[in-house]
C-alpha cells in the first residue's frame, strides 16, 4: 500500500508545481504572482525531499521560500510605491511569456530526453567513485566533498557569480529607505529578540553539520541572511563608517578566501584547487566559514537593493513623512 500512496504523492506534486509555475507567470496581478512563486518554492523543496536530495532541499527551503520571497516582496513594494498603483503585466506580454516559456520548455525537455538515450550506462553513477575517494577529501559528507573539493571549481565560480550580482545591484542605484514607514510592533520586537539568536545558532548548526551530513555554507548563509533581514525589518541599519570599506571587505572575503585556497595548489606544484594533503579539512572549514558570512551579506545586500552612500546609515531609515502618503 505504501508505494501506492507515495506514488500518488509523487504524481500530484509535479502536477501542482507545473500549474503553480504557469499561474505565476501568467497571473494578472504581480502580487499574486509573487505569492504563487513563494508557494512554488515551498512545494519545490518538498519535491527535492522526494528526490532524496536533502542538501538541495535545505537550500531551496531557506533561499527559495525565505530570502527570495522577502526579496520579491520588498522589490514589488518599492516599484508599486514609485508607480503609485498596483501593477500587472500587460495581457500581450503575458501571452508572449506563455508562448516563449512553453516553447523553451518543450525544446529543453526534448533535448534532455534525447541526450538521456546517448548516455553510457554506468552502474551506480558517480556515487561509488566519490565514496572511494571520500577519505581523501577531508570531510565525511559526499555532497560537501564534491562541492568544496572534487568539483570546487564550480562552487568557486558560483560564489563569483553571486559577488558579481551584488556588484551589479550596487551599480544600479543608491540604497533607498528599507521600510516605507517604521514598523512599530512590540510583538515583532519580542519575536526578533527570540528568533535572532535561534537563527544564528541554527546557521552555525547547519554549517557544522555540512561536514558529515546534509548542510553546508549556502544553507547556513541563507539562515544568517534571514536573521539580518529580520533585523532590517525592525528598523536596524548599519552605521555609515561600517558600510564603507568594512562591508566591502566582508562581501569579498569569502570569494577571495576560496580563491586563495585554490591557488595553493599551483603554488606547491599541484593543479588548481588541489589542496595539499592533511590541509584539506582545515582549508575547507575555513573557506566554508568565510563563505557563509560573505554569502549572507551578499543575499542581504541584494534584498536592500542599492549601494551604501558612505555618509548615511545603510539602509537609510524610513522618513516619517511617508506616513502621510498612505491616506
Amino acid at each position, binding site marked *: *500500500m*505504501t508505494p501506492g*500512496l*507515495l506514488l*500518488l*504523492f509523487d504524481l*500530484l506534486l509535479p502536477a*501542482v508545481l507545473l500549474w*503553480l509555475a504557469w499561474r505565476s507567470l501568467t497571473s494578472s496581478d504581480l*502580487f*499574486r504572482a509573487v*505569492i*504563487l512563486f*513563494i*508557494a512554488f518554492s*515551498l*512545494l519545490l*523543496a*518538498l519535491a527535492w*525531499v*522526494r528526490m532524496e536530495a*536533502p542538501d538541495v*532541499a*535545505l537550500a531551496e*527551503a*531557506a533561499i527559495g*521560500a*525565505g*530570502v527570495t*520571497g*522577502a526579496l520579491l*516582496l*520588498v522589490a*514589488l*513594494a518599492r516599484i*508599486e*510605491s514609485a508607480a*503609485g*498603483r*498596483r501593477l500587472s503585466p500587460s495581457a500581450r506580454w503575458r501571452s508572449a511569456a506563455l508562448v516563449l516559456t512553453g516553447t523553451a520548455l518543450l525544446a529543453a525537455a526534448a533535448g534532455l530526453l534525447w541526450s538521456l538515450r546517448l548516455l553510457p550506462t554506468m552502474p551506480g553513477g558517480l556515487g561509488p567513485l566519490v565514496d572511494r575517494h571520500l577519505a581523501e577529501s577531508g570531510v565525511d559528507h559526499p555532497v560537501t566533498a564534491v562541492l568544496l573539493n572534487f568539483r570546487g571549481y564550480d562552487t568557486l565560480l558560483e560564489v563569483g557569480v553571486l559577488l558579481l550580482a551584488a556588484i551589479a545591484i550596487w551599480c544600479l542605484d543608491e540604497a533607498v529607505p528599507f*521600510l516605507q514607514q517604521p*514598523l512599530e510592533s512590540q510583538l*515583532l520586537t519580542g*519575536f526578533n529578540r527570540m*528568533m535572532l539568536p535561534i*537563527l544564528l545558532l*541554527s546557521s552555525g548548526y*547547519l554549517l557544522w553539520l555540512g561536514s558529515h*551530513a*546534509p*548542510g553546508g555554507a549556502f*544553507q547556513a548563509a541563507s*539562515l544568517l541572511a*534571514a536573521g539580518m*533581514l*529580520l533585523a532590517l*525589518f525592525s528598523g536596524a541599519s548599519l552605521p555609515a563608517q561600517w558600510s564603507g570599506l568594512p562591508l566591502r571587505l566582508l562581501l569579498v572575503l569569502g570569494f577571495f578566501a576560496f580563491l586563495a585556497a585554490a591557488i595553493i595548489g599551483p603554488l606547491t606544484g599541484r593543479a588548481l584547487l588541489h589542496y595539499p594533503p592533511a590541509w584539506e579539512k582545515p582549508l575547507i572549514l575555513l573557506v566554508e566559514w568565510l563563505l557563509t558570512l560573505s554569502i549572507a551579506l551578499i543575499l542581504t545586500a541584494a534584498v536592500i537593493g542599492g549601494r551604501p552612500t558612505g555618509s548615511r546609515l545603510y539602509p537609510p531609515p524610513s522618513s516619517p513623512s*511617508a506616513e502621510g*502618503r*498612505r491616506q
Partner: protein
Amino acid sequence: MTELCAGLALFLLVTIVLGLIRIRRGPSDADRMLSAQLFGTTGVAILLLLGQATDRSFWWDVALVFALLSAVTAIAFVSRTEPAETAQEQRDEHGS
C-alpha cells in the same frame, strides 16, 4: 504506521492544493499572504510525516528550516504599504 504517514502526507498535499483557491480569490493581499503562511505550516507537517514514512530523520532538518523562515516573508509583507485597491477588488470584497 508508514502507510498512515504517507496517506496523511498525501492528504495534507491535497489541502495545500485546495488552499490555492484562496490565493486566486483574494480579495485582499492579506488573504493571499496568509494562504502562503498556511502552506508553510502544512509543509512542515508533510516533511515530518515523510521523514517518518521513509525512516530518514534528516528531513526534519528541512522542516526546522521551514519553521525558522516561515515568518520572514510574512514580515516582509507587513512592511509594505498596501497600494490602492483596484476597482475589481472593491467589487470582490463587497461581493463575498
